[in-house]
């Protein structure tokens, strides 16, 4: 942090100024002139929080994707399929048992097992052959998408959260002031707050596991030099399977989350594959903090775009990707090779 400030004093100043402006926008009571210019504070705050929570969902999907890529150099284009499968498994679990919470472990385990199968049956057979892996996983995603259409139908499913999660809560952010001088506080959906907190917890736990544990040490060593790690006697294939299962399981959990605050239907698989590709390209392939930053940027871009310039909202996401590719091809937090 201090290194960065010493090396780039100007950029640090700009960033600090932006943070101050953002904090002011969030906490201050907006003057009428600003409200006339850009619309009410409620719209801005909602877009901001929705962007952050949507980023949380994208992070859950993309972190598994980037973890798998970082360790094994596997480009798994069936990742969106794992997301959708997790959503369906979660919906049917919640539907049969009536328990929303139970949907998460079940989706994690079922999709994790699918991940193990993918690794053992497909990727291990074509280690190091990027093009073949890419084509085979595209093929698998098309076949499985049709199988799921056959099995689960073309309907949209919505996983209902338990009653203590539905409805709004009042936050401590002031959205406007009534003429009587009374402060109006922003109301925000409970379920989105919980999902965001969960995404943060998962992210921090992953970071801790990667940086503070023995397994994490092995994974990091594997990312840096796979051959040397296996020469030291570590059973690299077991590590690979474990990481693949975990990454796939995260996609499964994300499916349940996505089914709760949006809905799941055929076609969502490619949508989330594309989203996680954009996120890891922006954030940097193989980097967990990069995935978090990329997910946040893309989530915010989508939500602010849909409110402030709806016609071009779709373009904005890709504009970010193009800019990042043009100026920092390895991604914002990617390692230069």
């Amino acid at each position, binding site marked *: 942090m201090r290194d960065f400030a010493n090396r780039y004093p100007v950029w640090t100043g700009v960033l600090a100024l932006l943070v101050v402006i953002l904090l002011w926008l969030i906490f201050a009571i907006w003057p009428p002139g600003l409200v006339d210019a850009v619309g009410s504070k409620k719209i801005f705050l909602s877009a901001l929080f929705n962007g952050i929570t*949507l980023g949380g969902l994208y992070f859950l999907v993309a972190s598994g994707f980037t973890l798998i890529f970082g360790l094994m150099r596997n480009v798994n284009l069936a990742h969106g399929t794992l997301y959708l499968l997790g959503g369906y498994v979660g919906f049917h679990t919640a539907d049969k048992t009536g328990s929303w919470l139970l949907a998460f472990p079940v989706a994690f385990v079922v999709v994790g097992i699918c991940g193990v199968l993918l690794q053992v049956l497909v990727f291990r057979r074509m280690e190091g052959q990027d093009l073949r892996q890419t084509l085979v996983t595209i093929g698998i995603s098309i076949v499985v998408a049709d199988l799921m259409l056959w099995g689960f*139908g*073309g309907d949209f499913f919505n996983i209902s959260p338990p009653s203590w999660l539905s409805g*709004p809560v009042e936050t401590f952010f002031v959205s406007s002031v009534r003429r009587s001088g009374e402060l109006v506080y922003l109301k925000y959906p409970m379920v989105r707050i919980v999902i965001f907190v969960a995404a943060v917890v998962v992210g921090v736990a992953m970071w801790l596991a990667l940086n503070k544990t023995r397994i994490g040490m092995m994974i990091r060593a594997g990312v840096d030099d796979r051959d040397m790690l296996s020469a030291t006697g570590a059973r690299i294939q077991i590590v690979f399977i474990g990481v693949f299962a975990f990454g796939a399981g995260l996609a499964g959990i994300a499916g349940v989350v996505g089914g709760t605050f949006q809905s799941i239907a055929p*076609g969502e698989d490619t949508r989330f594959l594309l989203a996680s590709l954009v996120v890891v390209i922006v954030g940097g392939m193989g980097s967990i903090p990069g995935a978090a930053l990329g997910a946040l940027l893309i989530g915010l871009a989508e939500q602010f775009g849909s409110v402030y310039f709806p016609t071009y909202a779709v373009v904005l996401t890709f504009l970010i990707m193009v800019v990042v590719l043009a100026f920092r091809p390895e991604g914002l937090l990617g390692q230069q090779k």
Partner: protein
Amino acid sequence: MKKLHLGSLSAVALMSALGAPVLADGHAGTLKIGALATLEGTYTQLGEDSIRGITTALEAAGNEIAGRDVEVITVSTDGSPDSALRAARKLVEQDGVDIIIGPLSGSEGIALRDYSKTQPGTTFINGSSGAMETTFVDPSDNFFRFNTDGAQWSVGLGNYVYNEKGYETVATIGEDYSFIYTQVFGFATEYCAAGGEITERFWVPLGTKDFGSIIAALPDDVDAIYLGLGGGDAVNFLNQYQQAGGDANLIGGSIMVDGTVLNSEGSAKAALTGVPSSGMMADTSDDPRWTDFVSLYQDTFDEADRFPAPTLFSLAYYNSTSAMLQCMEAVGGDLSDGQAGFRECLSNLTLEAPNGDIKLDENRQAIGSNFVVEVREQDDGSLATEVVSVIENVNQTLGIDPAAFAAIGLPGRETPVCQSSY
């Protein structure tokens, strides 16, 4: 379906074996019908029920017309014009169907009107698509629409919400494509002429999943919000609207308060109780033709495989199929001479439909009844629309002088402008 297919196949095989000319003169052999519906994407449920409408009509006719067996080839679209075009090409150029019934969604209809001009040998009978342009601009000689369009479905609603409900300002939110433009067009021309004001219009892409920010952007200071959403979008919106604690007065578009949304899983639909709307049907109409149709629909399918009652989409496809059946009978199954006799019959037909008599204007566009309705909870706890009033003989120009109507412009994001007279 499979049985039917096998049966027709063996019939063809037998005829070939006897050396008889197959399909020689246009009134022998199997009649091939292409069914086009949205079986993917946001409108999946709507598409599934529309196919039930075709099946209901055909099974009631014993799956044959004028002595000819009927083969139905179903293709799926996703609501986009290019998917409809692809599907129609397959039906016409690969399967060689005689008649197409469909499509379901507004912009698909516009695409197929254009395509139908290049295929004069095939008759297109619209399924349920309701964009105004489809028949109003540059109509096609072989494209027939037996359902009223989205603007006609809005007739009566503007006056009702302004005069009876007292809503003086309204904001609209709708999916960003031709059918919803047409719906808002119909609503705005009547509501603004009555004295109401539309303050803002929000448009979201078809298939939007996350409405969070749009919901936050909805204004607080209007009397009501008009919802022009359907299928999965409608369910997603209502779900997130309740999560965000929304409690404004709502006005429903025709496919917002349809059985496809009112019967959805979950608590989303609860927000719709008491919501006024309008459309070409009412769930709880006591017209004997309607109740007969409801029991026919219910008897054709097992309870698990259908909605509790027919939706707008099964009705629209049922009507189109009925019109086709009646005219095929009238011409004795004879489609020779470029289907001229059959088309002549369709153009002059008065269809005694479950939702009232329907006849076509010179653009082959339906003139029919429209229902102003309100969503109410039924005795069994389900939601259904109840009739408030019925307006008969609604034509495509909504009773406005045709020249003045044309001057308003075609439905769009900002058209029509909200003004007190048109």
